[in-house]
């Protein structure tokens, strides 16, 4: 089932959520089968920042009720390291590459967008706006004006698709989505993880090294569905829907709520081929719906 995501041609409507599949590590574990049978119709990279980051101190994971809380802290090689070491490997993938970037100031984001977008291997960019703008102190994606100002700053730098990854930790994600569209974004994606916390079962201290983390998995599915529906009603650009997708039926629900494309995230931790399985189940479901509709 071919799909178009703001000009990026996809074999099927299931991609990965940023930070939930490392294609390079997967090749180390599973070999070239990863390239031959890539589970997603596009690959969205982990977040790249200007400077290299070590990430948060462990422990970084807590298994929550029907889900996961993570505080990974965006470890990455930094822009130069990514372009030099990772991009040549990712160029071997049989699907379009979307690079997710994040900066702590608008100028940082602009530097990242300009440097990444000029590479031929890159089909599109996703902006992670779930971090504070250190100049204003506001989370870039939690405030419509902050989001608009960011997208306006980077929009002129590239003609390639710009996807804004919305945070669900905002008062009104749909207003942020509208602001992103108004400033020239080509698509929005949601939901990112929801802020969560767990205590050490014996000491009662915060378990995660960073204190709090992001909740994902089935625990957020109903919240994601509602936010996708709300955002899809307010924007005309495509919506990439994600949050707790484990099956084709979960993906179909997001499409029904208005998403154009669906992303699989945490389920890939349980099943590295989850993306392909969800795509096949979705295809089967939609086929049956067409048959029963007499189409």
């Amino acid at each position: 089932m071919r799909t178009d995501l703001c000009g990026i041609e996809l074999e099927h409507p299931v991609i990965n959520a940023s930070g939930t599949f490392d294609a390079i590590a997967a090749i180390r574990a599973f070999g070239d089968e990863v390239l031959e049978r890539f589970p997603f119709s596009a690959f969205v990279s982990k977040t790249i920042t200007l400077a290299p980051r070590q990430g948060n101190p462990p422990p970084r994971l807590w298994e929550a009720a029907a889900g996961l809380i993570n505080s990974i802290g965006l470890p990455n090689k930094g822009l130069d390291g990514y372009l030099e070491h990772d991009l040549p490997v990712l160029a071997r993938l049989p699907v379009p590459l979307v690079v997710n970037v994040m900066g702590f100031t608008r100028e940082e984001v602009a530097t990242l967008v300009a440097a990444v977008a000029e590479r031929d291997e890159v089909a599109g960019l996703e902006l992670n706006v779930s971090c504070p703008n250190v100049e204003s102190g506001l989370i870039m994606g939690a405030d419509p004006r902050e989001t608009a100002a960011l997208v306006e700053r980077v929009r002129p730098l590239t003609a390639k698709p710009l996807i804004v990854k919305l945070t669900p930790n905002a008062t009104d994600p749909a207003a942020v989505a509208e602001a992103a569209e108004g400033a020239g974004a080509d698509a929005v994606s949601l939901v990112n993880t929801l802020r969560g916390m767990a205590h050490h079962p014996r000491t009662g201290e915060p378990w995660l090294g960073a204190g709090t983390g992001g909740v994902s998995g089935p625990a957020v599915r109903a919240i994601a569905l509602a936010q996708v529906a709300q955002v899809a009603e307010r924007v005309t650009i495509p919506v990439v829907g994600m949050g707790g997708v484990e099956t084709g039926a979960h993906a179909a629900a997001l499409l029904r709520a208005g998403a154009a494309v669906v992303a699989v995230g945490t389920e890939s931790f349980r099943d590295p081929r989850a993306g392909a399985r969800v795509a096949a189940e979705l295809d089967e479901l939609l086929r049956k719906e067409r048959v029963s509709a007499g189409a």
Partner: protein
Amino acid sequence: MNRTLAPFDRRLGQVEAVDAVGAYRRLRCTDPGGPAPRPGQFYMLAMAERWGGGEDERPYLPRAFSYLRWDAGRLEFLLEDVGPGTRRLAEARPGEEIWLLGPLGAGFTAPRDGRAPLLVGGGIGIVPLLPLQSEIPGPALLGFRDAAHATAGALMEDVELCTDDGSAGHHGLVTELLGARLDGHVEIYACGPPAMLEAVRLMTGERGVPAQLALESGMACGFGACFGCVVPTADGYVRVCVDGPVLEAARLEAVPAH
């Protein structure tokens, strides 16, 4: 080569038996089409049914286990009931289906410079040492809580045993046994609780003896996707699942307590 690549698909095995080995449970299952693993590698396991809905709506994620034995088409694991995941696996019935992903990670490598292998295990950490010993024979120093757990020591050969409570073997810690055997001609292969591995790391570091530590860490995926299982090394954090689980002691800055 210390790493067999895993098939990209997780596969369904069938539980054949779950029996007691002292205070531990041994789970045997089929491994249809799975390749031969290398000592030190691990698998992600999850029951196909009723994986979830337990205490606090867990387990949700698969759990990482070193393999105890592999024989064409058949795998064995040793478990200790410490939480909702291990409890569900320990309660598995013959005929139930189990998801297998693996073998994963990098295992042990041969001793350097003609050194004699010396195996050091603590509790459930003896598991990866079993396939290692059948490939690289060497004496095993094993520590357990008590005699009930120490029964598992009989799975290995050439064993010197100790227990925390003195109910079997030497009364004391396995690192005391190691202290008496540590000389410049051995290479250490160790797996066990974090405090034991940290002590082994410090002891071998002081003496300049090479040591390969098989680490454990909470992990969501087992193949490098989640970045959750990191440990600190001289080159920054590395992922236990793809850079380990067997790591050089000299590379590590500490064995984390979690």
